[in-house]
């Protein structure tokens, strides 16, 4: 092999977040991360490939268990600084299979085979000189090295760590495996590439591929949301039953169909959640508990949820999004024309007032029983006539997407989707609002949006995602 791809051994003291770093960089939420020293007993390799071409490999290793004893052995077998790497190799060769040094052998093996060193410390606990033995061993290997200051707890001792690590490592970086934004992942990978000239190109390639993958994922997420939105807006629950059954207790029949309609919509929403998570390679999110809690407290169809997830009454009045809701009263064309045509904020009075008054509640579909045919009648419930329902679904979906897209794979905490208290869709420009509204209108008439409308909807949702991202950024900053 003339130019093998770079390998990076992630090493350190036990329980300092090595596996978290690897989980985040390899986008793998199935790596065991536990607050128990010695969880990782064997080295585990995480190759990054593009079309099966290996660009780099991360190696998760066990933590140092007996660094002083190893260092004592090395010092006893070394004559000069030049023989140190060879002495480390000799140590591994001599102690392979020795139960006392199984961890050290596992972590040193990739390094003596040519891996770069990524030394991880916890910046939330005070620096202690007892790490010096292991840092000295790593220096003895003579391999390019980078120290990462991870933060497991809330305290910050990173300055003292930085000063101390600077004496042992070429590069020292801070990186919070759980909270670091994606741009920092890429920047860290670039820093890995700086450790040796031959590593720069593959790491640069990897960064470019990961960035474009990220961008495309956002588009795919928008397409998934659009698909679910259309399906949910168009959904109609039907049941065919004998004439007598259909007419004796229409209320019971309506309740039954409504319940099934709700159930279907919730299931469809859950499918969307799972699809978005799969897209971002989050396979082990503990969402079920959060979902149950979320649903019972913030029911999809409750007034408080509607307001919280982005369709406040004031917003409806100014943006005219409630226009479609009054279609039953025949004012649809009037309000649509004024609110959408002349612009949201200049929306006609009739449209705005109509929307505002209608903003009190979501209009749910009503039961419709078809004509008698062969002794049977078909009862229909849906599709939902109020486009606000679509905005509720969209708001929740975008919020969930944001949490997933921002979540690092080292995160193991429960995903809690808290309702927002402000209206972020206000930031969406008119043409994109129109695209969304048009599609929702078509769907509630149970018509299939054509390909162009679907494309427009996807673009509008993608834009809504950007607006939401920006809103979140400002929200967090303020």
């Amino acid at each position, binding site marked *: 092999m003339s130019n093998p791809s770079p390998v990076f051994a992630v090493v350190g003291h036990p329980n300092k977040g090595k596996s978290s770093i690897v989980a985040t960089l390899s986008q793998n939420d199935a790596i*065991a991360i536990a607050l*128990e020293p010695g969880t990782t007993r064997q080295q585990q390799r*995480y190759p990054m490939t593009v*079309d099966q071409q290996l660009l780099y490999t991360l190696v998760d290793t066990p933590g140092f268990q*007996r660094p002083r004893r190893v260092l004592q052995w090395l010092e006893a077998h070394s004559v000069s600084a030049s023989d140190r790497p060879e002495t480390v190799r000799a140590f591994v060769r001599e102690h392979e299979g020795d139960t*006392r040094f199984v961890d050290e052998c596992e972590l040193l093996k990739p390094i003596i085979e040519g891996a770069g060193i990524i030394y991880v410390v916890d910046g939330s606990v005070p620096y202690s*000189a007892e790490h010096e033995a292991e840092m000295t061993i790593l220096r003895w290997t003579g391999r390019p090295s980078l120290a990462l200051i991870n933060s497991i707890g809330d305290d910050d001792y990173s300055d003292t760590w930085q000063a101390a690590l600077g004496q042992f490592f070429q590069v020292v970086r801070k990186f919070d495996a759980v909270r670091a934004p994606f741009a920092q992942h890429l920047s860290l990978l670039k820093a890995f590439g700086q450790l040796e000239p031959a590593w720069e190109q593959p790491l640069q390639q990897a960064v470019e591929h990961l960035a474009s993958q990220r961008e495309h994922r956002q588009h795919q997420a928008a397409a998934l949301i659009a698909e679910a939105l259309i399906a949910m807006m168009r959904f109609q629950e039907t049941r065919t039953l004998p004439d007598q059954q259909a007419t004796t207790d229409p209320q019971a029949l309506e309740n039954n169909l409504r319940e099934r309609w709700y159930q279907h919509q919730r299931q469809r929403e859950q499918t969307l959640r799972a699809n978005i998570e799969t897209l971002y390679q989050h396979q082990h999110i503990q969402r079920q508990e959060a979902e149950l809690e979320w649903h019972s407290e913030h029911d999809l169809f409750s007034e408080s949820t509607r307001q919280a997830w982005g369709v406040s009454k004031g917003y409806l009045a100014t943006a005219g999004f409630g226009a479609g809701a009054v279609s039953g009263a025949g004012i649809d064309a009037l309000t649509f024309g004024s609110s959408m045509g002349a612009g949201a904020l200049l929306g006609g009075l009739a449209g705005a007032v109509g929307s505002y008054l209608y903003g009190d509640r979501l209009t749910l579909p009503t039961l419709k029983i078809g004509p008698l045919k062969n002794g049977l009648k078909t009862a229909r419930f849906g599709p939902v006539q109020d486009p606000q329902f679509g905005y509720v679904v969209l708001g929740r979906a975008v919020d969930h997407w944001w949490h997933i897209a921002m979540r690092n794979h080292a995160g193991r905490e429960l995903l809690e989707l808290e309702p927002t208290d402000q209206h972020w869709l206000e930031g969406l420009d008119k043409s994109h609002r129109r695209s969304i509204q048009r599609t929702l209108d078509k769907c509630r008439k149970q018509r299939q949006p054509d390909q162009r409308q679907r494309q427009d909807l996807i673009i509008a949702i993608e834009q809504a995602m950007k607006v939401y991202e920006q809103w979140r950024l400002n929200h967090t900053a303020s």
Partner: protein
Amino acid sequence: MTDKPLRLLLAFDDRFQRDRDQPATFLHRRDRRFALDCQQQGRSPGIRAWLAHLDRLSGAGADRSQTPGSRYLQRWRALGAGFIAGGSLLGVAAMLGLLLYEGGQRINVTVFLAFVMLQLLLAVVTTVQAAAGWQPWHWLTRHWQTTEKSPVRTALQPPMAARAAQAGGLAFATSGLITLLIMVVIQDLAFGWSTTLDTASTSYHRLVSSIAAPWAWLWPAAVPSLELVEATRFFRAAPDAATTSPPQWGQWWPFLTMTWLTWTWLPRLALLLATHFFLQHRARRLLARHPGLTTLHYRMETPVIETGNQHSDADDLPDTRTRSELASLPVTPVCIAWAGAGRDGLPEELVPTSSRPLSVGGNARLEDDDAVLQATRQQLQQQSRPQVLLLTRSWQPPTGELSDFLEQARQHWPAGTRVTLVPLAADPGLPPADHLLQPWLRFAGRLSGFASVATVGSTREANHE
């Protein structure tokens, strides 16, 4: 006439619908690999090749006739065949009706011409309906869509229906034409023209001449002459003109045959072809705009990125149940600090016990550890119930080195010596956080009675600052 674009679209749509349940990563890997293979072989990764490749991989024996697309096409073919059969029968019946001649009244050419115009109008309406997307046949196909919904198949309905209708119309025109010719041969038909309107023969002649204009140069005999027109006018209320010879009544048949052929049969044929090509064009356009095609191209064009997320050991977590409990802090003068614990200050509880703990671990040399073991041994030998306090930093979890040290101590120190591990918090005045304490309790538990864990520091509500 080939249905290739249509079949390609339906096959692609079938594949798209089937792939919806597959993980996106799998689809990306599969299609990217196909594109790379094509690149290596210098082939273009077209849709047809892609579908053939997937079929080939699945092996022989796949029943293609059972895919939703094939079923859809079969149903339309069956419906088309029904239209053709119905059209043929109706064509015969309609022509027989038009040529009904009992020897009394003449067969009215005007009725015949009106019927031809009606046919022409129907053919045009069918075409307009398809172009505008109306679906008057919807009731026929409604039940097909219940289980296999696809926007593509829905969009194909109008031109499919139009093609079936035009095929039925052509069958109608063909069987009508054949019936007309047979009737001309086997019967002596007497044609005449009649109308309530006050129309002169010259006007009527102008009308039939303009109808016959398309074939006048080809078959002049099939253009009725003014004499024929004048001679074959009849009134139901009046007896036949004595001047008209019986063969003259039959001289209209070439004109009527050509009228039917030109104004009923040919338009139907032309519109059937046009509808067919429109259908193929629509199929090509639907394929070009198919959402699955964009994603397929993306999958083929973009590299498959694998970040090493195949490995999973999330379910392989260590046993973190803690069986030991906290012990009380013993009173003993023997206090050892592991890896610099207590260097930043000792908790109040420990100050009277030992102001200068002995340092082991961390930065100390292994020889220093041995020296401390020896020194404490002498101290412990003087105690009736030897007890040792071993201070540690709670945030630095127990390591193999500490385990080795305790194992050595067990061998060196008097029998019955008990070690109490005291994990300290970063702030010496506070007890360590619970999650940091748990590994220490489990560590002590593994030392089978030799060691226990105690904490110092005043109780606090939260276990961290």
